[in-house]
């Protein structure tokens, strides 16, 4: 079946009461969790995944896509109203959104964030729908060597995007790989690092690791930072503005959305980086650059269009190559696998009906977000001030149920707790969280492709240099590692000159 009939078939499959209801619930849950400071989109998807076990893939995954889309937008609500971003992607929204709220324009700031979150999301959905299917066809040509190069590049780029300290990112990434190696080695059938515990032969359950690392650690983080604060929010009655209010800002929205999609595609980069880059680009090209940071509407547009545009961007490498674009899509890989879907090029070949309906569902989720956001602005504003002393125990109860529900196994619950402590210690000392989960997912793929390629070549390592794609990825990996050194050398030369 061609592309157009496939996508139309996808829409036909997804437009039914159950799917639309699940998307709507997903978006609502996403906004609800996203607007609570400290609860990220990754955590939202992780704790809601167990609810989808008994659902069909179309309903379960579209619900989670709704959560993903809703959570990224939800982060902007608390960013604007209380100056605390609900999710990392909304950090930049604080600059102008909170300034507008302080001036008494919270309603307009919230509506702007909603409108351009939806705009960015729809742009990214269109990119996803048009890029993912042809890219998966290219990826189908990839053999173990090419996959090895691709995954190696994926891991290296994570480290390079870990802010000031790539070393920390790399260590955490490799730590994630070590945890993924626990259990039976599927190639030789021998057990590794199980220290005699039978339950570990099946490996660490992905959901236990993810829920522990992202959600339980956050409960501990909330407990450590818990202080008595009373916050109130005031939103004016007018929360809807016509399109003419935004005349002259659409170019900024388009540019920011494209930046968001491109950054979303890069493995390891996420909504936070996208919003920073697009905010900077908008500031540089704006006539009102002086007003940025003091309540400029363009600042909110740039940040929100970009951070929501990363959602579709991040889904492109995840669905076509099986490489997560960010921590949320890493969790989504687990959710896909639980539903019996293996993200990667074969997904489009063997589950095309499901995949196209998910692509259609993602676009619909962005449209539904507009109506949910518009109707619920006042309600979500109230939720954003719920104290963390109430949120933390609720999250912990959901973590317990969610983890136990996967396999009805107490060992999973214990692993969740251990991962929570590890995640907390690492986060507390500013080790980035993203590389861990990406390492946990990519590590086994890296080992598998390495061993497959070497088995095919009878142990000849030069096989990796026989594939131009693999060589290209290895060169890119080398460049990623050496880039900071090269930059320092050039900076030194410039300083001397």
């Amino acid at each position, binding site marked *: 079946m061609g592309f157009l009939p496939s996508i139309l078939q996808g829409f036909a499959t997804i437009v039914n009461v159950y799917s639309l209801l699940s998307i709507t619930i997903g978006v609502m849950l996403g906004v609800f969790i996203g607007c609570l400071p400290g609860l990220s989109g990754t955590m939202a998807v992780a704790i809601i995944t167990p609810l989808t076990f008994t659902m069909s893939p179309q309903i379960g995954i579209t619900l989670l896509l709704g959560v993903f889309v809703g959570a990224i937008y939800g982060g902007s609500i608390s960013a604007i109203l209380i100056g605390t971003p609900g999710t990392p992607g909304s950090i930049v929204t604080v600059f102008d959104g909170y300034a507008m709220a302080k001036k008494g324009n919270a309603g307009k700031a919230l509506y702007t964030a909603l409108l351009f979150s939806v705009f960015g999301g729809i742009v990214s959905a269109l990119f996803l729908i048009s890029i993912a299917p042809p890219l998966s066809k290219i990826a189908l040509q990839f053999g173990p060597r090419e996959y090895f190069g691709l995954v190696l590049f994926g891991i290296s780029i994570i480290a390079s995007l870990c802010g000031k300290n790539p070393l920390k990112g790399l*260590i955490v990434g490799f730590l994630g790989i070590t945890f993924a190696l626990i259990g039976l080695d599927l190639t030789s059938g*021998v057990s590794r690092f199980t*220290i005699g515990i039978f339950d570990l032969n099946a490996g660490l359950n992905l959901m236990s690791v993810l829920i522990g690392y992202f959600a339980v650690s956050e409960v501990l983080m909330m407990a*450590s930072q818990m202080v008595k604060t009373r916050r109130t929010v005031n939103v004016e009655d007018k929360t809807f503005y016509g399109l003419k209010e935004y005349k002259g800002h659409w170019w900024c929205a388009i540019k920011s959305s494209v930046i968001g999609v491109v950054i979303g595609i890069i493995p390891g980069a996420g909504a936070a980086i996208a919003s920073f880059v697009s905010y900077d680009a908008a500031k540089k090209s704006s006539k009102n650059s002086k007003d940025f940071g003091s309540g400029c509407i363009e600042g909110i547009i740039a940040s929100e269009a970009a951070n929501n545009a990363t959602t579709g961007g991040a889904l492109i490498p995840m669905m076509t190559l099986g490489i997560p674009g960010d921590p949320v899509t890493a969790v989504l890989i687990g959710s896909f696998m639980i539903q019996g879907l293996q993200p990667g090029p074969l997904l489009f070949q063997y589950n095309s009906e499901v995949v196209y309906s998910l692509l259609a569902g993602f676009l619909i989720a962005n449209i539904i977000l507009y109506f949910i956001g518009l109707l619920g602005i006042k309600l979500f504003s109230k939720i954003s001030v719920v104290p963390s002393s109430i949120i933390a125990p609720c999250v912990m109860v959901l973590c317990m149920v969610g983890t136990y529900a996967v396999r009805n196994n107490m060992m999973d619950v214990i692993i969740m707790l251990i991962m929570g402590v590890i995640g907390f210690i690492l986060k507390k000392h500013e080790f980035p969280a993203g590389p861990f989960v990406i390492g946990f997912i990519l590590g086994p793929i890296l080992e598998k492709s390495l061993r497959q390629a070497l088995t095919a070549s009878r142990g000849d390592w030069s096989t990796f240099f026989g594939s131009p794609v693999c060589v290209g990825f290895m060169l890119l990996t080398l460049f990623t590692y050496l880039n900071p050194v090269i930059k320092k050398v050039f900076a030194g030369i410039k300083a001397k000159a």
Partner: protein
Amino acid sequence: MSTFNFVSSMSAKKLAFQEKTGELIVTLGLMLWGIFFYWRSFFIPITAAAQKSNIITSTFFPRLISFSIIGLSVAHIFVTGLKIMRTGEKDVSDNSAHAQRGSEQAPEKGLLSSPLSRIVAAGVLMIGFVLLFHIIGFLPSSFIFMLSFLLIFHKKHLFINIALSAAFTTAVFLIFRYVFIVLLPEGILFESF
């Protein structure tokens, strides 16, 4: 420079020093994990066929990863150690967010005044929750955990805390049990009845 500025600058440096020391300890822990992982790789059984062939065995990749963790941790310890030694001239700007966050928060008095005591309290509650979850099942253990957490951290009226805990745990139980048909543990204590 005023006395206030001098004191705040000193406390920021102290905070930065403490954070770097903590980071060093964590990295040391990660290095030890790498060493442990490398040591445990010798316990991986290797099949005779794999030993004869020149293709990599099940131990190759884990050892490569352990070496990488150890090497990167050593490099990070070296860099962080240098930073600690140079704390006097160190730029503490990357820790300014912490200092600012600390200054914004009003310190709480009593047993849970320090972050460490709050973490320990939350940790004990979590471990208790896991144990009770297994012994007495989901509904009572979740209620006890939530109520204890709220009493310690939320500190509102007892009745409100009881109502909140009961409402939330019952709602979660009903949703998981009857909407999503997920079996929740009844507890080994009640299984025999």
